[in-house]
């Protein structure tokens, strides 16, 4: 974009570019890039945060696989919280998006309302469900169990042994609207003529969905899957709040384990190694799925 005008003022322009880039780049380098590099360094050490760190190579990463390691159950919980709610979220979101896409009355109301839970902070969502699940007389679910099924003993749905299962409906409730809006936007980008042509050929709603809608929105659907996987890998807030900041082996995820190891046991090397692994997993998921997508795009 070098015009005759700007060439004459090239020094002034160079200064302008520098002065506009320097503050954001400096801030970003200092508070994102530098800590990223340091995370890799810390992950190779044993360090209590006070004395000098000791270089231990890959020992932190190897200890993830050691017998009795807390890390294995933690990553299993991440997988659980990604897969089980994920299946419900994707199915419900696709189903509702497809229903609303068919130009029904009140579409706007459903679209706006379904998105509500996504607006509320994860801490508020966790507390809202804590109240629904509460074993005290305030708890709605135990109230229903008592009046409909004559259950006399309240069930402590949020105690550690049941917490992960109880998080499934909560996660579905809070996330489905986002994916529905995402999928609906993709569906609305599909030209109406495709559907009209297929209908003339006698295609029913099921055929339309699998032969036109899904293939046409495949890229956005895959993006949704990546979001769900990354969200599952990072899972932290709800568990932290519902366990009052003291998750146990039965409820730890990678992020909560990282927090506990660093800020409660002062095992900074180990905790940072978890963060590094989390980052690598996010990276692999994103890069691999992008590659797969590109290949599919070439095949068509």
């Amino acid at each position, binding site marked *: *974009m070098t015009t005759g005008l700007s060439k004459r003022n090239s020094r*002034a*322009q*160079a200064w302008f*570019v520098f002065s*506009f*880039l320097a*503050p*954001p780049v400096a*801030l*970003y380098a200092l*508070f994102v*890039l530098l*800590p*990223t590099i340091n*995370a890799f360094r*810390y992950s190779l050490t044993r360090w209590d945060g006070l004395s000098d760190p000791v270089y231990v190579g890959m020992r932190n990463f190897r200890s993830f696989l050691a017998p009795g390691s807390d890390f294995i159950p933690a990553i299993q919980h991440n997988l659980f919280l990604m897969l089980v709610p994920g299946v419900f979220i994707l199915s419900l979101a696709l*189903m*509702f998006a497809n*229903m609303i896409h068919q130009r*029904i009355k009140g579409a706007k109301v459903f679209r706006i309302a*379904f998105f*509500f839970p996504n*607006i*509320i*902070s*994860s*801490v*508020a969502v966790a*507390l*809202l469900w*804590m*109240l*629904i699940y509460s074993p*005290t*007389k*305030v708890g*709605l679910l135990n*109230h*229903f169990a008592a009046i409909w099924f004559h259950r006399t003993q309240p069930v402590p749905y949020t105690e550690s042994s049941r917490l992960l299962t109880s998080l499934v409906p909560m996660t579905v*409730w809070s996330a*489905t*609207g986002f994916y529905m*809006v*995402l999928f609906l*936007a*993709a569906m609305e980008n599909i030209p109406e003529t495709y559907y009209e042509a297929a209908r003339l050929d006698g295609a029913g709603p099921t055929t339309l969905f699998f032969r036109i809608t899904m293939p046409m929105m495949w890229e*956005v659907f895959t993006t*949704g899957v990546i*979001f769900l996987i*990354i969200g599952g890998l*990072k899972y*932290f807030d709800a568990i*932290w709040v519902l366990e009052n900041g003291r998750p146990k082996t039965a409820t730890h995820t990678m992020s909560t384990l990282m*927090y506990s190891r*660093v800020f409660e046991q002062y095992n900074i090397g180990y905790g*940072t190694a978890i*963060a590094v692994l*989390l*980052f690598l997993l996010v990276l692999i998921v994103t890069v691999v799925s992008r590659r797969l997508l590109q290949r599919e795009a070439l095949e068509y």
Partner: protein
Amino acid sequence: MNAAANRVFTGIKYFLLSLYLLAVVFPMLWVLYTSAKSTQEMYRNPLGLPDLITHPSAAHMAVFVENYRKAWIGSHFSDYFFNSVKVVGISLALILLLGSMAAYVLARFEFKGRGVIYTLFMAGLLIPMQLILIPLFFQFSDMSEWLTRMLAPPVRSMGFGELTISLHDSHAGLILIYVAASLPFTVFVLTAFFKTLPAELREAAMMDGASEYRTFFSVMMPIGKPGLVTVAIFNFLGLWNEYLFGLVFLNSDKLKTLPLGLASISMQAQYKSDFGLLFAGLVIAMAPALIVYLFLQEKLTKGITVGAIKG
């Protein structure tokens, strides 16, 4: 398909959609109307409407007011609320300013290193907050020490007493992280946006004798408003609800933001079995973001899908 089968289909569709609508909206309504109940009323029937609605009276009104008074004043919810307003407000202003400066230059100027800088920003989209959390914690200690060493002597010599700078347990520290961590997404969206603006705009402004700076602030920024609004809404929701960084970097109760304050109130309320406080607190915490959403929902859903579909 015949008309009867079609009607059945439509019926099922509406039934399922309405059922889910109820599942989404009812828990929020339940929190809202339960916040007008006393703990005794909740114990009597957790599902029923509050006496305030069924038998309106001054006494029942007092229960309602008391719950909110306890939350807003007694439990410092007003502090949490204004802390959130302050931290998120300042962060947003800086994010929009710095993000659009970087994006404008990256989108509209040719210079050496442009590709590298853009790639570095885009790499940030892949970095989870968890990765930088721990190193930042220790980096903050070093930086605070360094800043104090640099700035304390001149301040002392000017007669203002001892100066100690700490980025830990301070809004400034949290804001710096929020701004830096929000830049990749902001730069990504705004660069794409500035690229779509016609080149003639800048040339025309410069012909009129405006400097590059003036061109940016009085021509480009106003035209860039739709892009800025999208980015602002997206960042607002993320930061307004942010929990993990606040948890690590804010310790003093008087500095806490809403999500942190809500979490600590919940422990107090459960300990004292004061559920009125908890329900009222939840309403205060949920309401602002929901109201912002209702007013800006079209722009917001567009912003989110733009981010997701292009990302």
